[in-house]
C-alpha cells in the first residue's frame, strides 16, 4: 500500500443500464478521491445514482450495467482486474453494509457463523478460531453478551443488533475501507444515534475509511468530513461537510437543506421551503442544467448548454455557473395575519382509556401439545400483546395532534382504533359526542364519511388496477356526493386541490411518482369531505424535497377546510412542523402530551429527551439500554428498563403518576423534577443549517 496516494479514487465513472433497447445513464462522469482515514458521504435523493456508485465499486451491478472510467483502490484499477482477483480484494480490503438489516442476514445461520465466514474464506482461519474472533468483534461493536448473540439466529435480534452484527461481519477481515449504503435508514432514531456513535468510534480508534451513502444530511454531518451531492446522475457539489452544509453553493443543495423541517414548534402560518417539481427520470444534461426546471434562480443561460463543474472561491467544485451570486433559498411563508388563528374548542374525537390487546395466533395453530406427568395434553397458548394500553386524549375541530414514537410503539394501532378499523379491547372512542362502539354497523357509515386515513406506503396505498379517476370517483359514488355526470368535474377539482394536473385522472398508480401517489391518496381521503384525518406516516417514504411539499399541502388543506389530523410519525421534526399538540408514545402508553412548544422544551419526560437528543446527536445524551428484551407486561413504568433516571424499584412496581407541568402539558413519570438540568437541545434549526 502506498501511503501518499488516496485509498480510493474514482475517475470519470459513468454507469449505464441497458433496458430494452434504451440505455439509461445512472451515473455520469463522476470523479472523487478518498484519503486513508477520511470519510466521504454521497448524498442524494432516490434515483440520483448514489447507490450505483457503491455498486460499481463492489462489482454487483450485474451484466445489464456498463461501467466505464477507473476505480482505483490502493492504486489498482478494480475494473481492470480479473473477477477472481477482484473478489479477493472485495472481501478482504473493502467491507460493505447495506440499508436493510432485516434481510441482509441469512435467517437460517447463526450470527457468529455469518461473521466468521469471511475470515475463513479470506484469512484462511480455522472455523473455531474464526468463531472466537467473531465473538470478540461483536464485543467491539458494543454488544454486551457477545457469546450469546453469536449463538443466536437473526430473528432473535433487534434491528440495531443486526446492523451491529453486519458491521462486525464487514469489518471481520479488518479492511481499510468500509462502504455503507444507508445503514441507518431502516432504524429508529435512538438506534440510529447508537449506530452512528459506533461508527465514529470505529473511525477514531481503528482509522477506518468510510464511504457513506445517504439521503439524510443530518446523519452525514455527524459522521463525515466531506460530502458529495448528487442530482439526476451528476455530481453537483463536492466539499468539506461544514462548508457544504453551512454555505451550500449549488441551488439543489440549498433547497435540500432548506426543505428539511427544523426541530422546533412551527407557527400555524409557517410553511417549509420546498423544491417544486420532481427529479427527471432521464436527465439530458447536454441541453442545459439538469436542475433548471426546479430551480428558483433559473434563467435562460442555464438552458444554453451542458453545465460543467466550476470552482467556488473557497475551492469547491460546483455544477452551477452562477453559484457565487446566489442568495438563500426562497421561503414561501404565509403571513401570520392571513393564517387562521386556532383555538381549542370542544372535542371532535375523544379517546378514553383506550386499549388494544392482540391475541396470539388463532385457529388450529394456536393449539400446543405438551406432555405433563406422562400424559399428552392439548392446550391453547394465548400470546397476548398489549399494543395500546389505557390511552386518553381528545382532538378539537381544526386541531392537529402529533403522535411520535419508535416503530412498534403502537401508534399506528392507535390511529386504526380511532377509525374503528380495529376494535378496541377496552375504553371508548367518541366522535362528535357519539360512542362509536355502541353504534350499530349501519350507523357507522356517516362516521366513515367524516373520518378518513392517509397511509405511509405510497407503493400499496392505491389499487394498482384502478386509474386515478376511478379511485377518486368511488368515494363520491359511495356517499352520493356528486351526480354521475358531475363526477368527472369533481375528480378534476380534487386533483387540482392536491396540485396535480387534471389529465392525471387517466393514469394508473405505476405511472406516478411517489409524491404524486401520496397526493392522490390525500385527494381520495378528502373526497368524502371528512372532518378528521389520520395521517399515518404520510411522508416517511418520500424524499426530503417531496416531503416538504406534502407537509405544506397538508397544512394548506388543514387551514382551508378546518380539518383535524392525528399526525403519526417517528420523526419529531416533521411532527413539530404540523402539530398544535404532540403526544409521545412508548410501548403502548402516552408518556408525555402537551402543546408542540411544551413538549419540545424542558421539562421533558426522560424518553422525550432521549428522542430529542438522538435526533440532534447530543453526545452527552445517556445511552438508552436495550429495551427490546425487557420482559412482558410490567406493573410499573413501561420505560423503566431504558430510563437513565430510574429511581429504583418504585419505577418497576408502581405505574407512573400523571404530573401536570402546565395546564396543557402532562408527563407520566415518577420523577419530581424532570431532567431539565441536563444538557438540553438547542431548539433552532438543529439538524441542518439554513440555506
Amino acid at each position, binding site marked *: 500500500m502506498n501511503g501518499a496516494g488516496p485509498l480510493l479514487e474514482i475517475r470519470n465513472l459513468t454507469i449505464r443500464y441497458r433496458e430494452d433497447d434504451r440505455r439509461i445513464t445512472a451515473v455520469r462522469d463522476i470523479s472523487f478521491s478518498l484519503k486513508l482515514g477520511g470519510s466521504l458521504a454521497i448524498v442524494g435523493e432516490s434515483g440520483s445514482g448514489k447507490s450505483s456508485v457503491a455498486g460499481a465499486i463492489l462489482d454487483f451491478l450485474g451484466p445489464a450495467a456498463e461501467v466505464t472510467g477507473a476505480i482505483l483502490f490502493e492504486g489498482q484499477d478494480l475494473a481492470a482486474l480479473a473477477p477472481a482477483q477482484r473478489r479477493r480484494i472485495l472481501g478482504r480490503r473493502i467491507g460493505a453494509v447495506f440499508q436493510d438489516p432485516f434481510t441482509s442476514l441469512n435467517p437460517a445461520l447463526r450470527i457468529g457463523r455469518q461473521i466468521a465466514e469471511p475470515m475463513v474464506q479470506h484469512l484462511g482461519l480455522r472455523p473455531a478460531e474464526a468463531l472466537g474472533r467473531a465473538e470478540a468483534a461483536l464485543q467491539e461493536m458494543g454488544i454486551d453478551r457477545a457469546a450469546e448473540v453469536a449463538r443466536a439466529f437473526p430473528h432473535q435480534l433487534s434491528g440495531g443488533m443486526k446492523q451491529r452484527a453486519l458491521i462486525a461481519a464487514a469489518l471481520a477481515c479488518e479492511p481499510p475501507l468500509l462502504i455503507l449504503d444507508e445503514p441507518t435508514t431502516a432504524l429508529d432514531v435512538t438506534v440510529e444515534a447508537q449506530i452512528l456513535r459506533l461508527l465514529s468510534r470505529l473511525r477514531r480508534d481503528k482509522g477506518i475509511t468510510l464511504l457513506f451513502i445517504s439521503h439524510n444530511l443530518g446523519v452525514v454531518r455527524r459522521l463525515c468530513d466531506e460530502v458529495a451531492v448528487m442530482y439526476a446522475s451528476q455530481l453537483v457539489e463536492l466539499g468539506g461537510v461544514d462548508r457544504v452544509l453551512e454555505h451550500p453553493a449549488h441551488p439543489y443543495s440549498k433547497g435540500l437543506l432548506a426543505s428539511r423541517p427544523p426541530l422546533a414548534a412551527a407557527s400555524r402560518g409557517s410553511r417549509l421551503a420546498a423544491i417544486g417539481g420532481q427529479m427527471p427520470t432521464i436527465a439530458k444534461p447536454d441541453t442545459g442544467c439538469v436542475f433548471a426546471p426546479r430551480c428558483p434562480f433559473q434563467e435562460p443561460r442555464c438552458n444554453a448548454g451542458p453545465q460543467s463543474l466550476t470552482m467556488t472561491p473557497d475551492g469547491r467544485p460546483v455544477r452551477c455557473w452562477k453559484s457565487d451570486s446566489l442568495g438563500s433559498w426562497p421561503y414561501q411563508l404565509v403571513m401570520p395575519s392571513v393564517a387562521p388563528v386556532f383555538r381549542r374548542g370542544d372535542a371532535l374525537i375523544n379517546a378514553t382509556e383506550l386499549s388494544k390487546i392482540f391475541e396470539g395466533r388463532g385457529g388450529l395453530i394456536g393449539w400446543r401439545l405438551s406432555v405433563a406427568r406422562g400424559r399428552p395434553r392439548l392446550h391453547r397458548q394465548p400470546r397476548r400483546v398489549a399494543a395500546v394500553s389505557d390511552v386518553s386524549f381528545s382532538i378539537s375541530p381544526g386541531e392537529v395532534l402529533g403522535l411520535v414514537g419508535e416503530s412498534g410503539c403502537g401508534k399506528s394501532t392507535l390511529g386504526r382504533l380511532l377509525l374503528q378499523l380495529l376494535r378496541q379491547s377496552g375504553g371508548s372512542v367518541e366522535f362528535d359526542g357519539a360512542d362509536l362502539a355502541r353504534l350499530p354497523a349501519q350507523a357507522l357509515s356517516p362516521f366513515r364519511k367524516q373520518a378518513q386515513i392517509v397511509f405511509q406506503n405510497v407503493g400499496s*396505498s392505491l389499487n394498482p388496477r384502478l386509474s386515478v379517476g376511478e379511485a377518486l370517483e368511488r368515494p363520491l359514488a359511495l356517499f352520493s356526493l356528486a351526480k354521475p355526470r358531475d363526477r368527472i368535474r369533481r375528480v378534476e377539482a380534487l386533483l387540482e386541490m392536491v396540485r396535480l394536473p387534471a389529465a392525471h385522472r387517466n393514469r*394508473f398508480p405505476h405511472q406516478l411518482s411517489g409524491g404524486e401517489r401520496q397526493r392522490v391518496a390525500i385527494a381520495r381521503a378528502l373526497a368524502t369531505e371528512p372532518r378528521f384525518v389520520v395521517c399515518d406516516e404520510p411522508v416517511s417514504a418520500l424524499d426530503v424535497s417531496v416531503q416538504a411539499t406534502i407537509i405544506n399541502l397538508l397544512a394548506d388543506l388543514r387551514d382551508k377546510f378546518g380539518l383535524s389530523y392525528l399526525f403519526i410519525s417517528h420523526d419529531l421534526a416533521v411532527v413539530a412542523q404540523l402539530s398544535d399538540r404532540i403526544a409521545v408514545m412508548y410501548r403502548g402508553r402516552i408518556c408525555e402530551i402537551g402543546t408542540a412548544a411544551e413538549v419540545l422544551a424542558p421539562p421533558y419526560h426522560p424518553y422525550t429527551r432521549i428522542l430529542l437528543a438522538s435526533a440532534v446527536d447530543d453526545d452527552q445524551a445517556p445511552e438508552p439500554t436495550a429495551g427490546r428484551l425487557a420482559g412482558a407486561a410490567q406493573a410499573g413504568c413501561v420505560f423503566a428498563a431504558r430510563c437513565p433516571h430510574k429511581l429504583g424499584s418504585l419505577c418497576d412496581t408502581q405505574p407512573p403518576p400523571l404530573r401536570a407541568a402546565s395546564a396543557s402539558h402532562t408527563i407520566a413519570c415518577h420523577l419530581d423534577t424532570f431532567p431539565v438540568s441536563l444538557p438540553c437541545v438547542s431548539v433552532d434549526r438543529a439538524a441542518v443549517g439554513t440555506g
Partner: protein
Amino acid sequence: MVARLTDLTVATIVRRRSRLPASLIVGGALVLILLTIAALAQWIAPYPYDQMHIRDRFLPPGLHYLAGTDEYGRDVFSRLLFGSQLSLALGVTATLISMGIGVPLGLIAGYRRGVTDELIMRTLELMMAFPPIMLVLLILAVTPPSLMKTAIAIGVLAVAPIARVTRSVTLDLMSGEFIEAARARGERLGYMLMRELLPNVWPVLMVEASLRVVFAVLLGAVLSFLGFGVQPPAADWGLMISNGRAFVDTAPWISLAPGIALSITVIAVSLLGDGLREVLDPRLGSGR
C-alpha cells in the same frame, strides 16, 4: 411482489412486444388454430364422424382417408376433427366450472380469514385427500354418463387448487393499504371482492387456468378411455385411443392419430401458460 406483478397491464405487455417469449407466440398460435378447427369441424371434415365405410375398414393413411380408417371404416381424420370439439369443450367447461366455484371461495377465505377461512379451506382439503380418479368415478359410476356431467366432475376436482391459489394471492393483497383505505370508507363485501381484489388476482389466475385446461383434457381422455366419459359412437380422443387399442399391432393409426392430437393440444396450452407466466411475472422478465 404482487403489487409489482399487477402493475403489468395489457398495455405494458403489448408495449414489450419486442421481447414476447417464443412460447407465448407458438402456444398462442397453436391454441388459436385448434380452436378454429374445432369451431369449423362440421365444414372442413371430409366425412361425418359416424359414417361407416364397410369396404374401407382398417385402411392406412392415404389420399382418401388422410389419417386412415378404423374398424368400422370410419374416417379417423374426420373423427379427430369432431373429437377436438368434445375435448376442448370439456377442458374449457371444466375449467370455467372450477374457476366459477374456486375463485369466489378463495377470495372470501382470504378476505374474511378466521373461521370462514378455516371452514372453506379445511373442506377443500378434505376433497383433495381423495384420489382424483376415485372421486370422478364415484360421481360418474352412480349416474348415467354425459359430457356435462363429466365436465362438472372434473371441474369440481380442480376447485381446491384454484381456491388455494386465489386465497394465497388475496392474502398477499390484504396487506396492501388500499384495502384498508376501502375499509375506512366502509365498502361492502361485494365491492371489496369484485373491484379491489379480483382485478389484482386475475393475472395469476389466467396462468393457473391455462394449466387447468390441460389437466381437464387429459382427465377427460382418461375417463373416456375407461368408458365413463363420452359414449360411442361419439368421437372423443380418449375414446378413440381406447377403441384403437385392440388393433394397435395391425392398424396403429387408429390410436396414434388421436394420441398425437392430444399431445399437440397439451403442448400448445402448456406453452401458452408458460408464456403467460413469463410475461406476467416480472421476476422472470427484466426487473424494473
